[in-house]
């Protein structure tokens, strides 16, 4: 079979995470059957699942974090009592708030260490995470035997374990198309770990439980799994939203929060301009009141599991997008989700975003129209959608104008240099530096997906700094000319080849290779 080097580059970079180093032979395999190489992963049943020993379910994780927070609360209480007995008149803040913490209660070394390592812990909305971290200060006095190096913060430990599992899968995957789909859908239905302790704890389990099972399944199933996942309900405040006329709403004088309902319509399904109104948003917000998760005490169910709280549910019939939904408890909201999953605006919105991600910032209209049709006719079958994309001509003919995202760039580097990560720290730092902190986008619209966002002057300069640093540590082990063969073979431009061959050192050559258009564009 004829070797098609350009198509191999497309298969590896546009659809996958790039060629692996060593003897994997990815480029050769991709060149001999580009489409087959990309599609190989699609036919593997459950190929998107990530089951790694030690990774726990959302309720199990909830129990750990609830226990942890409870312990902290106890310790804080104990310390407060000890403090007020030690000091006859605790200093009173002028505004009548809690007295300020005394200086002799030192911050826990662990909390400091974590804060120093992970800037995402410092985000402005990390109130809960901070609440979970700071009081660890009291632990040394409560449990003086504890060795100082033991990381007691279960939240950070969990986040790193989840990150590691995801990174390892990305780095070792054959082509990586299925993992790229996971990343795409995970960003489409993103949460942010910066929302607080629970979000950080659940960022990984959310992806494993709500996204991965449906990446090769149905959009409607993914939508339902996402909107009923505790992580999403927490991220977009729905656990706080009460039907104004529900029993809980009346008793507690609280009511609606339309955050989740709006983002379901705007970001998850119909898209802006998808034909919904403010009334539809408010209506859907009413319908999904009561969608929440059970708390620590498990009054409503297993702590940390999705529950429908009828007490918080707004009673009555509601109108959404011109259709009447009769009061039917949980099923009322599920019926709405099922309908909007099949709405033509959703098909258009998803087809456009999907094509923009993989093919071009301005996606070819004919391809978008075809994928929209495929989405509709297949009932939102996402494996069929992905197959149609790979089978299209446009996806192979469009020039590589997209930039790799920071995640794709770092993973591609790790694959080429055969760095199967054993510690996620370097990757997480790199993602922070490049503006794509893992599972922590700035807003519910996820990370940007256009070249303009990632090819910024500062972003490019930082990529170069990172490449130079990686090269300074690893270049001695490789011949850069051989790496170029693995990356692009005869699809490499003469200029790139010459630049690498004429570099003044292996280090410089590797840095230039990692920054070459062949490695950065897709």
């Amino acid at each position, binding site marked *: 079979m004829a070797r098609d080097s350009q198509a191999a580059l497309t298969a590896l970079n546009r659809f996958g995470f790039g060629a692996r180093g060593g003897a994997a032979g990815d480029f050769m395999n991709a060149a001999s059957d580009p489409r087959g190489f990309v599609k190989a992963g699609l036919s593997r049943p459950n190929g998107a699942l990530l089951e790694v020993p030690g990774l726990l379910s959302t309720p199990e994780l909830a129990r750990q974090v609830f226990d942890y927070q409870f312990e902290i609360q106890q310790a804080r209480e104990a310390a407060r009592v000890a403090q007020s007995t030690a000091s006859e008149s605790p200093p009173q803040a002028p505004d009548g708030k809690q007295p300020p913490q005394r200086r002799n209660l030192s911050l826990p070394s662990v909390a400091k260490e974590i804060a120093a390592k992970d800037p995402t812990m410092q985000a402005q909305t990390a109130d809960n995470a901070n609440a979970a971290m700071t009081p660890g200060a009291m632990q040394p006095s409560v449990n003086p035997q504890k060795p100082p190096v033991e990381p007691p913060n279960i939240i950070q430990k969990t986040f790193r374990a989840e990150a590691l599992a995801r990174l390892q899968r990305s780095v070792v995957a054959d082509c990586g198309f299925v993992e790229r789909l996971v990343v795409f859908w995970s960003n489409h239905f993103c949460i942010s770990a910066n929302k607080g302790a629970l979000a950080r704890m659940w960022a990984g389990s959310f992806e494993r439980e709500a996204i991965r099972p449906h990446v090769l399944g149905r959009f409607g199933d993914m939508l339902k799994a996402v909107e009923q996942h505790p992580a999403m309900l927490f991220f977009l405040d729905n656990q706080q939203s009460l039907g104004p006329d529900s029993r809980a709403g009346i008793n507690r004088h609280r009511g609606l929060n339309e955050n989740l309902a709006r983002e379901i319509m705007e970001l998850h399904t119909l898209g802006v301009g998808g034909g919904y109104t403010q009334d539809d948003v408010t209506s859907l917000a009413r319908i999904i009141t009561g969608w929440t998760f059970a708390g620590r005490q498990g009054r409503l169910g297993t702590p940390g599991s999705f529950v429908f709280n009828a007490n918080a549910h707004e009673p009555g019939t509601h109108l959404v997008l011109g259709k009447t939904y009769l009061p039917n408890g949980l099923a009322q909201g599920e019926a709405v989700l099922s309908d909007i999953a099949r709405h033509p605006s959703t098909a258009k919105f998803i087809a456009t975003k999907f094509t923009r991600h993989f093919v071009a910032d301005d996606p070819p209209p004919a391809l978008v129209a075809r994928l929209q049709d495929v989405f509709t006719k297949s009932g939102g079958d996402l494996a069929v959608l992905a197959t149609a994309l790979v089978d299209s001509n446009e996806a192979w003919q469009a020039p590589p104008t997209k930039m790799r995202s920071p995640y794709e760039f770092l993973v591609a580097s790790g694959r080429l240099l055969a760095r199967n990560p054993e510690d996620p720290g370097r990757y997480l730092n790199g993602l922070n530096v490049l503006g794509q902190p893992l599972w922590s986008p700035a*807003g519910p619209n996820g990370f940007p997906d256009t070249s303009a966002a990632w090819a910024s002057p500062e972003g490019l300069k930082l990529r*170069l700094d*990172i490449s130079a640093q990686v090269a300074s540590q690893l270049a001695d082990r490789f011949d850069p000319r051989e790496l170029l063969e693995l990356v692009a073979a005869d699809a490499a431009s003469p200029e790139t080849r010459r630049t690498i061959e004429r570099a003044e050192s292996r280090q410089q050559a590797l840095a230039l290779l990692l920054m070459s258009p062949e490695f950065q564009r897709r």
Partner: protein
Amino acid sequence: MDCSENLVMQATSRRALLLGGASFAAWAYLPKLARAADGSDPRLVVVILRGALDGLATVAPIGDPDYAGLHGAIALRADGPNAAMMLDPFFGLHPAMPEFARMYRAKQAAVVHAVATSYRDRSHFDGQDVLESGFPGPGRVQSGWLNRALEALPRGDRIAGERAMSALAVGPTTPLVLRGAAPTVGWSPVALPQAADDTAMRLVDLYQHRDPALASALTQGLQLEKQAQGDDMKPKPGAGGAAAMRLVARGAAKLMAADDGPRIGALAFDGWDTHANEGGPVGRLAQLLGGLDGALAEFESGLGDRWRHTVIVVATEFGRTARINGTEGTDHGTGTVALLAGGAVKGGRMITDWPGLKTANLYQARDLAPTTDLRAVMKGVLHDQFGVGERALADTVFPDSTPVKPMKGLVA
């Protein structure tokens, strides 16, 4: 295996601020962008608050009889603990902003209230696109109004046709408001050891042959001015969002204070989407406003003498509901505030045509009704600070905005 941990070294302090080199070369000849009369050398900073700032919580219409009822548990009060700082008998400033209050009293800060862009729906992302692109509606994301304003600036003789001045984009990605054809330089407080110059030059050369877009971006990001900065530029472990805001402002101010520094800068702060537990005088929004307040103070001290000729505009994509929602927060709304600060501001003024908060006066019976077009504010500042002509403002900077006249007299 030791090889697994070396992919990306820990971010360490580079302690260097980056300036675009091509533009740096040009700056030696850059004519002062003089305001015709007094020959001053003005600076403009645009601060975008992403997530929609609750204007009624930032500058509260305490004298409006309907305010306390609508804003409920989180409403500010004129007296008692954590009282708002009254800017006039009607409006009170959030108590987390003492620096802004001081500037206001010194007539170096003003508030525009009941202001909004031309966008009337409630998507953050479309709202931000309109705010930053300067187009009347969403969907235009190729360039931002501040970049096009740069293009419209009168060019100096020595660099005629070649390059206007560059603007400073703070953060790892360029905010839309500054994207476009005019040159920008980037700076971000996160730092790494830098690649060697020779490596960078070779890469620029490769890009020039193979990928002009990357060549131009990298050139701008690269050719650098290392400016001395002390230990105080290092992000402090445990620093919260407020400290991060100060840090970013401090770095940007330092760059812009230099004789050859960028005259125009843009930065964005996230996190203003206060759907739940927004908090009143203390709480979540208070922390954010405290950070913003600190950032303004950093600009004031960091810009030194330049502060006298500086205008900072703080704007957000839209406001929030007048009535708090069921979770002691506010949902997406319409009218909000814009804040002006700087020695060049004709300050000490509340600028508003107050629509009132009676239900009949609210936009769609839920939001503060906008009575001022934010573009009028931006146009006024661009006209007064840099002499951008009204025609350019109406045609290219804010396309299709002829009926929106520049607000006069914002700059002293």
